[in-house]
């Protein structure tokens, strides 16, 4: 057994860390979030130059043949810097779907992602959340020369800026069936497709989509029997998001313990009070559990051995532990922890968002118990 990053992975991580330390401190991040720009084009370009956009894809698809461990190594740094980027939506989710498809235009779209020219969004979740692809209901009905899409997608990360949408649909069956799912490529300017963009609580951009009889030609069909593809890319996205979350948790533990060692009340650092000290000890335990499960699951995934259970353990634990770390960090900071000015609340909101996407900890822990 060896759970450490390779020297190459460490170098990659360090170069991303240097980039973000120099160009993406908290104030810069906040300025971008509060601006009209969805993310910093400068950083996206730098990501492209560092090869991050091509990192995870096979060499024959123009990538660097990186493993999930490479992605995890850099995603932890993203979390530490509260990065706002379409990395998960465009690279990890849709990039993986396009790379796996033989549809001729998929190949073009994929290389556009790699070159940093275009972004693609994955329209998957519905209602208040879609923790399992079997629950997808957005309907795709076969017509004479193509398909007609009807229904809604919620919280589609990066959809407002995307040059292309990949939409998960139900061609047959009902919610709960693994069969009958299909993926389509949809041009965002398509008639009768309504896109409502907004910002998320953790600074990302997202959109709700409504399809009212949206017509698509047959060649836009990417995948039939898409359950396995969807499940596999979501697992990959979950691992990446959880790595981000672990990065954020580590940052919160550091920021909070430093604050408690310098903030004095009653003539002594508040970290010396048992009520605070024990709570920070619990934060450290939570972080250690989260980090261990994160690294272990990454190694499983690299070996191609992750099962649904393993993903649920990871997502359930990271969601639950992340929330407890965030809440403790706010409480220990007191009033300043409740302000928009400190990074603490923003880390907490990022952790809440990670917990909520692709099934929250309540769902995943429950799933574990029912198997």
């Amino acid at each position: 057994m060896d759970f450490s990053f390779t020297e190459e992975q460490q170098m990659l991580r360090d170069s991303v860390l240097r980039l973000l330390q120099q160009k993406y401190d908290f104030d810069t991040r906040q300025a971008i979030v509060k601006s009209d720009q969805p993310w910093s084009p400068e950083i996206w370009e730098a990501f492209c130059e560092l090869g991050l956009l091509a990192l995870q894809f096979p060499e024959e698809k123009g990538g660097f043949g990186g493993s999930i461990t490479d992605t995890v190594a850099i995603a932890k740094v993203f979390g530490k810097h509260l990065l706002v980027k379409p990395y998960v939506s465009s690279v990890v989710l849709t990039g993986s779907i396009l790379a796996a498809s033989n549809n001729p235009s998929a190949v073009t779209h994929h290389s556009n992602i790699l070159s940093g020219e275009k972004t693609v969004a994955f329209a998957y979740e519905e209602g208040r959340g879609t923790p399992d692809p079997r629950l997808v209901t957005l309907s795709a009905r076969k017509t004479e020369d193509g398909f007609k899409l009807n229904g809604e997608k919620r919280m589609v990360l990066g959809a407002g800026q995307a040059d292309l949408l990949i939409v998960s649909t139900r061609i047959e069956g009902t919610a709960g069936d693994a069969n009958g799912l299909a993926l389509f490529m949809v041009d965002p300017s398509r008639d009768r497709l309504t896109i409502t963009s907004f910002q998320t609580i953790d600074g990302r951009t997202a959109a709700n989509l409504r399809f009212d009889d949206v017509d698509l030609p047959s060649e836009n069909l990417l995948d039939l029997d898409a359950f396995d593809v969807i499940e596999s890319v979501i697992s990959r996205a979950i691992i990446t998001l959880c790595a981000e979350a672990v990065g954020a948790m580590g940052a919160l533990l550091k920021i909070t313990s430093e604050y408690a060692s310098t903030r004095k009340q009653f003539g002594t650092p508040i970290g010396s009070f048992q009520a605070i000290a024990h709570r920070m000890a619990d934060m450290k335990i939570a972080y250690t559990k989260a980090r261990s499960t994160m690294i272990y699951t990454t190694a499983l995934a690299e070996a191609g051995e992750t099962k649904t259970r393993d993903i649920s353990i990871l997502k359930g634990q990271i969601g639950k532990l992340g929330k407890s770390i965030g809440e403790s960090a706010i409480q220990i900071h007191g009033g300043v922890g409740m302000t928009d000015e400190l990074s603490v609340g923003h880390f907490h909101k990022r952790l809440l968002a990670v917990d909520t996407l692709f099934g929250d900890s309540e769902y995943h822990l429950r799933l574990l118990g029912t198997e």
Partner: protein
Amino acid sequence: MNIDFGSELDAFRNKVAAFLDEAPTPAIREAGRKTTSAFPPFEEAQAWLAILIEKGWAAPGWPKEYGGTGWSVEQRYIFEEEYRKRDLPPLLPNSLKMVGPLLIDLGTEEQKSKYLPRILSGEDYWTQGYSEPNSGSDLASLSCRADPDGDDYVINGSKIWTTLAYKSNRLRMLVRTDSDGKKQQGITFLLLDRTDYPGMETRPIDGLDGFPECCEVFFDNVRVPQSGRVGEENDGWSVAKHLLTHEREVSASSPALKRYIERIREVAKAEPCPFGETLADDAVFQRTLGELEAEIASLEHFEKLAISGHDISLDPALPSMTKIMNSELVQRESDIMRQLSGLEGLSLELEAIRVGSNVLPMDSDMDLISMPFYLKSHATTIYAGTNEIQRDLIARTLPAG
């Protein structure tokens, strides 16, 4: 013992219900639905106050001779229940629940006649200047200084977490008037007639929900009359302690908590559950909600015992225990609402949540408020003495303390 409120109170309940159904304007109701903390949208809360003043129901907690309602504790509880059932915005607490009762107890006749009518007419809204950047839990270490000069004090320093200071026209504050001796001695309690004296500057601070509820107020040689002092110079700590009992016992919090349970149930009935039909049918959800309901019920029982004058109300730990129970239940409840909203809680809807914006929420009313409510609920275990400090206080009432 007698559990009944008495059947003669049914008529009272009907009268209250009829008024509360009728009186609030649509904007006031909207503000109630969009309330995410103890501090509702300011303008609508003040408009609602004006209506209640007109009716004579603005200050049920005040003695009748000062403009209170003269209601019994049962009547006050019924009022709170009917009020909360309708999702009406709570009245802003600083003037009505803190400054008013304090002046009634400790103010001079001149202060009472000057300030109380203006609180009850809605002309004045008071903010609170207690905490300082370096004095939070250790409030008595405060250093914002007031130096006597003729009939005035000259104030230098700053105050933080002054709630809604940028909307307030008056400020009550603690200042340091003596730096020798024990830190609690040497503090003075002052009432300021203005929040815009020369040398005063107010900076609103955005909270986790993106809106400014708290502020920081800076004082640079601010000259105020000594007649605004409550109690003696250097005796402000005992005045503040007296007031803190009012702040911590904002009584009968259970009706609000119970109403949120109803709202959760309404949404759960229609929410599909990945493990069954609807969330309301789901055993795990039922267990979670059941435990929360039982906890809220115990708080309600405790509150009713306390207001009825049962021995339990004599417990010196009562204010701290009430504060911990209420704040931690608010957090649990808002967390369940957040979980229930799921993805719908992740969208930032700053416009939709603004009263009068005419921007529809992307999903239900509950989804609009659940995330800001959850985020802001974290202030409840921090303000008015952190729950860590409250637990210390409770421990001190036990033999080993």
